[in-house]
């Protein structure tokens, strides 16, 4: 347990810094960066529940993100209802969608599972683009800004604290998965399904459950994203770029660890929002690619893995 302390401390420090930022600076751009780091981190943590802890590597999580984004946006734009209601509807739909895809692709492993999830997100993208009467098609849906918590028309500071609560919640759920009975069962499923079965673990049910929980979290974050950004269109919210982003944050930060998704998001999101991108459009993608190659080649367990090895080395050096 004590071996894990450093990365728990890092997470506490990271969330504390985020919480203190608005007290020190009021710069909208900086607050926006912190919000996005936390939000992409939370989304990646949601992906990590299925992809990291249960080993169900999906490249179609944009499906759930898009469901959540559209549910909230349409609920407030089309029906003038609270986006919170849209968030709840989105979560319900994503639970159904997650259960469906989890059940249908239950026997598929590795790349085959990933391909089936890509296909699922693409199907939803086409539906959202073509169902013009309901979704306004590829024109997208602008989300009306109505000030207030119930209508999610918030200022930057309020958004930051709301997203911080969500991020801490996602982090806490991952910590639970590392230490609980169900977390151990998921680890068994991830490592070897046959052996897990021999130990009395209902592997198929556990896999579906992991995907459903992950889908619900992704959908909720998608709803919040739609309200924060204020515009939803099918080619972005259902895009494979987003799905890949959820996965890559976790892979770069450390797949199957609680801190990994947030560390990955800190690195990637700040690269994206930093001045580097403003002065040289597209360089962010180049850096992104180089970082990814370096991580996959030299540290497949991600930044938390590097930190863990450094910590162990230091402990030995001091012993």
């Amino acid at each position, binding site marked *: 347990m004590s071996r894990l302390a450093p990365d728990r401390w890092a997470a506490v420090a990271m969330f504390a810094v985020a919480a203190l930022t608005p007290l020190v600076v009021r710069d909208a751009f900086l607050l926006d960066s912190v919000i996005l780091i936390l939000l992409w981190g939370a989304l990646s943590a949601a992906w990590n529940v299925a992809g990291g802890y249960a080993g169900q590597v999906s490249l179609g999580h944009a499906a759930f993100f898009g469901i959540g984004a559209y549910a909230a946006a349409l609920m407030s734009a089309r029906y003038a209802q609270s986006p919170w209601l849209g968030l709840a509807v989105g979560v319900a739909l994503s639970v159904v969608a997650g259960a469906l895809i989890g059940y249908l692709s239950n026997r598929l492993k590795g790349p085959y599972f990933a391909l089936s999830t890509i296909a699922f997100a693409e199907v939803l993208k086409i539906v959202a683009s073509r169902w013009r009467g309901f979704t306004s098609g590829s024109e997208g849906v602008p989300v009306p800004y109505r000030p207030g918590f119930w209508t999610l028309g918030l200022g930057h500071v309020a958004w930051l604290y709301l997203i911080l609560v969500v991020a801490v919640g996602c982090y806490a759920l991952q910590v639970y998965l590392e230490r609980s009975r169900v977390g151990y069962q998921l680890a068994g499923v991830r490592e070897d399904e046959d*052996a897990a*079965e021999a*130990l009395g673990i*209902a592997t198929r049910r556990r896999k579906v459950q992991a995907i459903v929980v992950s889908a619900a979290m992704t959908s909720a974050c998608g709803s919040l994203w739609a309200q924060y950004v204020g515009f939803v269109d099918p080619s972005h919210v259902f895009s494979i770029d987003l799905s890949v982003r959820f996965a890559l944050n976790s892979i770069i930060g450390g797949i199957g660890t609680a801190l990994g998704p947030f560390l990955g998001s800190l690195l990637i999101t700040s690269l994206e929002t930093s001045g580097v991108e403003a002065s040289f459009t597209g360089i962010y993608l180049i850096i992104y690619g180089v970082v990814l190659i370096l991580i996959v080649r030299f540290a497949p367990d991600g930044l938390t893995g590097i930190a863990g090895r450094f910590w162990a080395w230091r402990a030995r050096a001091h012993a």
Partner: protein
Amino acid sequence: MLTLEAVTKRFGGLTAVRAVSLEVRAGDLLGIIGPNGAGKTTLFNVIAGYYRPEEGRVRFEGRDVTGLPPHAIARLGLTRTFQIVKPFGNLSVADNVMIGALTRLPRVAHARARALPIALRKRLEVARALATRPRFLLLDEVMAGLNPTELVGIVDLVRRVHAEGVTLIVIEHVMAAMMRLAQRIVMLHHGEKIAEGTPQEIAHDRRVIDAYLGDEFNLAEA
């Protein structure tokens, strides 16, 4: 405790297990021997729920478990180890065992499971299965590939497990160990049960010698 009634398992045109019947009573230590491809592991897979037999029934403590998924059978108290050991390689040894329940292997507990030498991985395989507190355990070649010293250790482990009241079926190629360990031995050949008896009876059985042992098995070697 465990009853197989004329169990048959086919893969396409190949009949891997043909009408095998078996009766294992509580407290038994039954050995299964046979040449490669005789259907030993397939039989385990049928008993533990990994394969559904085309014909016949499997009963565990009077209950028909034919076609139940492996995890349901494991929860009834019957579990197995794998011939090709399946450690949860990226997890520590302690975590491997934790996934079943709680026991301890102090000295190597925090090593990554895939870093263990084969003898310890075989032991881990047994420890992990035991962590589920099974009343009935299927051991698939836990002695294969071990040196004589390691062999003594694992034979001792199997004996202790048996002494704790666990009923066992053991698949083994190491005949010497099997002869000392098992109370009763079943011989499979081409998917059929061709002999059943005490180790002495098996060692002198003409069909067994023809099919497998080659020469009359010398018990003195055992």
